[in-house]
């Protein structure tokens, strides 16, 4: 069997997906990216192959995406996260659609036509608002792990707002609310509401909306809030954190054009 692998080297986590010729997902793995991106990609790749019960020699091609895509010597080609999240989302949901990818360091809005081709995109400005880093900062202020924010937000009863655009100022605003005796659960929900408003202001969202990325995977409360804010059904595809890597595997399988520089000394184009 011919295998295709996608590696998504993100700012927080590196993900690997192994697919078959028919795009069936055979194995996945996630590891922290840290400072050794090639090592992280190796761990993820090994983990995904192990989960698939397959060998490296069976892999026809490895394509990379994510901020570390050009650093991965394991890859035969690369595509941006903009391409891979769009490609991955369009595999599960027919276009036209808008993909929202909320990552650790940035947020992206990707417009796709009925055939799944990209029409355009928007990225957040050089600012943590609207990204996973914002939630990390808020969790830090609340003295909890960010993974616990979602559970906490489920207990919210009072709709509070964090109005600041700036993550640092939002943190200060949070302190004022803590001082005013507001409940942590309400503050957690307020953080989600703030993030959602920031994302909603990035672009227009006609038609179907698909949410991808690690933040959506670990903070499902966001999805419902996004739907309310955008007045749209927000679809979460299977394995939302893996969509970028899945899209990279699809790019490898489909033989996409790599416009970026060569990787590992080989000309990808």
């Amino acid at each position, binding site marked *: 069997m011919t295998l295709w692998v996608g590696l998504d080297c993100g700012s927080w986590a590196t993900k690997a997906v192994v697919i078959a010729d028919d795009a069936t997902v055979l194995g996945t793995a996630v590891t922290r990216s840290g400072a050794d991106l090639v090592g992280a990609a190796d761990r993820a790749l090994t983990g995904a192959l192990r989960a698939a019960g397959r060998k490296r020699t069976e892999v026809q091609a490895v394509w990379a995406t994510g901020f570390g895509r050009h650093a991965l010597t394991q890859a035969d080609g690369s595509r941006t996260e903009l391409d891979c999240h769009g490609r991955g989302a369009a595999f599960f949901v027919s276009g036209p659609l808008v993909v929202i990818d909320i990552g650790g360091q940035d947020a992206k809005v990707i417009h796709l036509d009925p055939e799944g081709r990209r029409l355009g*995109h928007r990225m957040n400005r050089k600012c943590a608002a609207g990204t996973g880093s914002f939630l990390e900062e808020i969790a830090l202020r609340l003295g909890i792990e960010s993974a616990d924010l979602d559970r906490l937000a489920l207990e919210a009863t009072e709709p509070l707002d964090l109005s600041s655009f700036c993550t640092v100022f939002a943190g200060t605003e949070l302190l004022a609310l803590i001082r005013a005796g507001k409940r942590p659960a309400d503050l957690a929900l307020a953080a989600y509401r703030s993030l959602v408003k920031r994302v909603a202001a990035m672009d227009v969202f006609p038609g179907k909306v698909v949410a991808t990325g690690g933040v959506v995977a670990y903070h499902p409360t966001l999805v419902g809030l996004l739907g309310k804010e955008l007045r749209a059904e927000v679809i979460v595809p299977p394995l939302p954190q893996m969509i970028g890597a899945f899209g990279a595997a699809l790019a490898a399988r489909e033989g996409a054009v790599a416009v970026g*520089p060569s990787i590992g000394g080989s000309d990808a184009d």
Partner: protein
Amino acid sequence: MGSYYRSLGETVGGPSAPVAWCSSVGPAELLQALGFRVFFPENHAAMLGAARVAQRTMPLAHAQGYSQDICSYLTSDIGAHLAGETPLTAFGLEAPPQADVLVFNTNQCRDVRDWFEWYGRKWGVPVIGVRSPRSLGEVTAGDVDGVTRQIEGLIPPLEQVAGTRLDPIRLAAVVAASRRCSDLWEACLRTAAHRPAPLSFFDGTVHMGPAVVLRGTAAALGYYEQLLAELQERNRQGAAAVPDERYRLYWEGMPIWGRLRALSELLTEFRTAVVASTYCNSWIFAALDPADPLRSMARASLELFIVRAEGPKERYLEEMMAQYAVDGIIFHDCRPCPNNSNTRYGMPRRMAERLGVPTLVLDGDVNDLRCFSDEQARTNIEGFVEQIADARGAVSGARPG
């Protein structure tokens, strides 16, 4: 250019021609005709940005109450003055020449006037200029009349500082040379309509130097005659600014001076040439007419892209798309420069929807690199080129396995 900067050094510490500071698209021809040595502080600020000196000079101006949200040319330059720094040391100058008069035209923004007034207060010299109408749809005779009267009003105070009377024949000669410079510069830029383009926007930001600081002089004409001949020869030989050029883009907005090389190399990696730009085109003054110097200077200042309303700007960009056969437009949203950022009233989306041309908004700053993310820019631009490549339906060049 080196001779020009060195000539400015001759004004320091000895008798020489009076010095006028002039905003980049201000009435330079009038100043030259009156015998001023003309210094363009925006050119100096761009040098501060390109040399990345601005990163340490801007905070000094911020501390003086000049906001981070206003023109970073202004804060770079005033900060450099406070720090006693200048890239002009490479030409033997310890500092930019002190002005005897500062002359602005607000056709580009209000910031040039505020910038010049800082120096005017410091040196006790006059700050005069043209307060231009802005956001013009059609340029009417009334608009031109108003600016012409303002330029005429500059003559008496400038004559007083210059210590001489304006010679109409000399003014006509300077305007004629400026027009010739403009025509040659335009012809140089137009060579990039050729596929592959012989020069890119990034080359243009360097080659435009004489059009900015030496227009109206013989030196500028010689430079552009030679450059045009070289570019035409490159086209005959098929020499490309970007090897194996595959995609062609238009750059709308200010350069990001501290990242010129990085962005040029990045786009070269993607086999993408930025073949035209509003910025380089801004020193084309097609209206200049030696038969009617002052009125034509007024008209030229009002016909510039930056002075116009959204409608004429969009029509202009549409013409550029066709002339240069571009695949997409990069709009630089220059954080502190609303007048040079045509991203804030929906233009990129309208252009994309109306013309079907892909547009990309790149967040940045002309000089302040704290407002620019290399990583985000890379992903944005690479993703944009991917989109263009996919739309073209190119087949795979990837080498699996």
